[in-house]
């Protein structure tokens, strides 16, 4: 009987801790983040912006996700936008791209205190249906309690199974991805 009571007490305390952790963690989210993609390889600018980035991160664990719709990337040149969707990204077949990972040093960020904090992010970036591990750095800027994450990294286009003419020529072999997400709390 004593053992049953002891087991019950242990379970209750574990449950109590996990409930407390759940209650303590906060999810920051945005549906209006921005990602700029730049693959300029020659004279002509090949860049597009998407202003409907869906992103969330959890303060307690540092878990972070970004989701983006490929057809939401707007180019200055309509023809370029059409080629990007049809010939390279095949966005009808692969309409989404996402990143799922962790802010590895979230414990070093004081989300209650205004300031700028360097962050290390690690996760899997999936574009064109192909996922690859990405490790990069960025910054969390806290202003009036609201965090903004910014960062920039490069990807090798061909590693994502993207084929098509001009990669490595007019289109850079490495595309730059710039992230700027202002979260609500």
């Amino acid at each position: 009987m004593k053992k049953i009571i002891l087991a019950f007490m242990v379970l209750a305390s574990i449950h109590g801790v996990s409930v407390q952790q759940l209650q303590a963690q906060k999810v920051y989210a945005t549906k209006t983040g921005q990602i700029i993609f730049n693959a300029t390889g020659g004279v002509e600018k090949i860049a597009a912006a998407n202003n409907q980035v869906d992103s969330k991160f959890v303060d307690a664990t540092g878990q972070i996700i970004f989701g983006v719709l490929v057809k939401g990337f707007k180019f200055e040149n309509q023809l370029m936008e059409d080629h990007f969707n049809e010939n390279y990204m095949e966005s009808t077949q692969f309409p989404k791209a996402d990143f799922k990972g962790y802010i590895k040093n979230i414990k070093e960020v004081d989300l209650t205190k205004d300031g700028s904090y360097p962050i290390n992010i690690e996760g899997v970036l999936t574009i064109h249906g192909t996922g690859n591990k990405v490790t990069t750095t960025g910054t969390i800027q806290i202003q009036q309690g609201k965090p903004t994450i910014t960062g920039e990294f490069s990807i090798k286009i061909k590693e994502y199974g993207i084929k098509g003419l001009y990669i490595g020529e007019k289109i850079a072999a490495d595309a730059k991805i710039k992230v700027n997400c202002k979260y609500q709390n």
Partner: protein
Amino acid sequence: MKKIIQYALAIIIVVAISGYYYVFIYAKNHHRNVQTETAITIVADSLSAQFQADEKKANALYLNKAIIVTGTVLSVDKNQQGQAMIMLGNAASFSNVSVTMATNASAATSSPALTITVGKTITIKGVCTGALSDVVITDGVIH
């Protein structure tokens, strides 16, 4: 023989000029105008419900298509670039329809969109770019 060469040269010049015009002038200045396209008319709740039920099927029906969507305004906001954003749907739903309004002043400046009040039922025409946590519509104009 001379005439054939002259004709051939003329054709080559016309093709080259047309190609240059299309690639470097027309495509740069001409953007898709969804407002002139025939659109699918749908209610916001039904659109988000279809994406929730079967995203692949919904993508086949609506992705990159002109949509005229009617729904209750849940929120009116601005994105990081200052474009008006209107959420249509049902407050109790897990997923709704998020519309980013067009930025060209003649079609829909941000100001009229931002005067729309929450709770009102409105109709917007735009392009469906798919679904994340909500169905996303871009280039929206009040219909």
